[in-house]
């Protein structure tokens, strides 16, 4: 009887652990489970679990798809989700490249390109406290945040746009927790 109870308890334990492993957090994938019993007369009942840890994303930031340049400037939005456990830090956003593959080397940073025309621009990041920051150089903080929300920046042409049409250029943003 004692053996039977022991066996049943082990089975229940195994089932419970199995269930919880499938409902586990996203940081762990269910692995294999082994059930051991030395004999049906005496011995120990044990359960071995094996997990394969997979590093998964912890937050998401939605960035604009492209770069819009209109007279007077165009405002775009970042959306930050699941920002947490920053250990007192914050997410700092910088721009590390404004180039697109195939753009001529002569095209300067922070400029869009079309034919023989370049339109320089600058970026203004808006902070939650109402302040803002103008950026014309790579690797400078545009904005920072430490919680979920929508954050805005504005791309402002620094000169008159010489002609209408498609101008080429991309932004590569960098997100760093500091």
């Amino acid at each position, binding site marked *: 009887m004692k053996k039977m109870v022991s066996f049943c308890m082990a089975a229940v334990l195994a089932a419970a652990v199995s269930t919880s492993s499938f409902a586990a957090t*996203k940081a762990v994938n269910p692995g294999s489970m082994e059930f051991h019993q030395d004999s049906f007369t005496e011995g120990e009942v044990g359960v071995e679990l094996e997990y*394969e*840890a*997979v*590093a*998964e*994303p*912890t*937050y*998401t*930031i*939605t*960035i*604009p*798809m*492209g*770069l819009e340049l209109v007279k007077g400037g165009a405002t775009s*939005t970042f*959306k930050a*989700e*699941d920002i947490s*456990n*920053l250990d007192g830090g914050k*997410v700092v956003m910088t721009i*590390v*490249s404004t180039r*697109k*593959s*195939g*753009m*001529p080397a002569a095209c300067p940073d922070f400029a869009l*390109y*079309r*034919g*023989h025309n370049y339109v320089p621009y600058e970026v203004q990041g808006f902070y939650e406290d109402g302040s803002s920051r103008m950026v014309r150089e790579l690797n400078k903080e545009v904005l920072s945040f430490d919680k*979920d929300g*929508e954050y805005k920046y504005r791309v402002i042409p620094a000169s008159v746009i010489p*002609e209408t*049409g*498609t101008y*080429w250029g*991309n*932004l*590569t*943003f*960098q*997100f*760093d*927790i500091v």
Partner: protein
Amino acid sequence: MRESSNHKLIKTALLAFCMLVLLGGGIFVGIQYQNWAVQPAAAPMEQELDGAAKDWAGTVPPDQSGESQPGIKIPGYASISIPANEQDVKISLLNPEENPCYFTFELVLDDTGETLYASKLVEPGKAIQEQTLSRSLDAGEYGATIKISTFSLKDQAQMNGANVKTKLVVV
């Protein structure tokens, strides 16, 4: 006499026609020149899909606003733990399902600029969960960057991208 006059007329008409064609061609070239010159010299290259990418069945941080916002969702990694002295690692390099673009991922060590891993194109809704690094790392903490390049689903034209700084914890 009359025949000669007709010939002259025909010649004049032909000349006028040729001049008109040349003039029209010149105007057309002039108008199109700017458009021909505007595009970047290198057309987007046709890239391969990454065969290691599988359907993503895991969870992603939820959209709490309830409204869909046009844009590219970039997954962030505060830190990544991988085993020491092993080249085979498990990191979920995910392209969220809603995205209008392919992703490529590159894992780069900050100190040296060394590329430890580079993927091919990953479709939206898929993730690469197992990678073989170019070399194993000793135990310790390393500053690293996941460079995410984005390419339009339509024509693979490059779109805005992102670098995600992370801490590589090698244990």
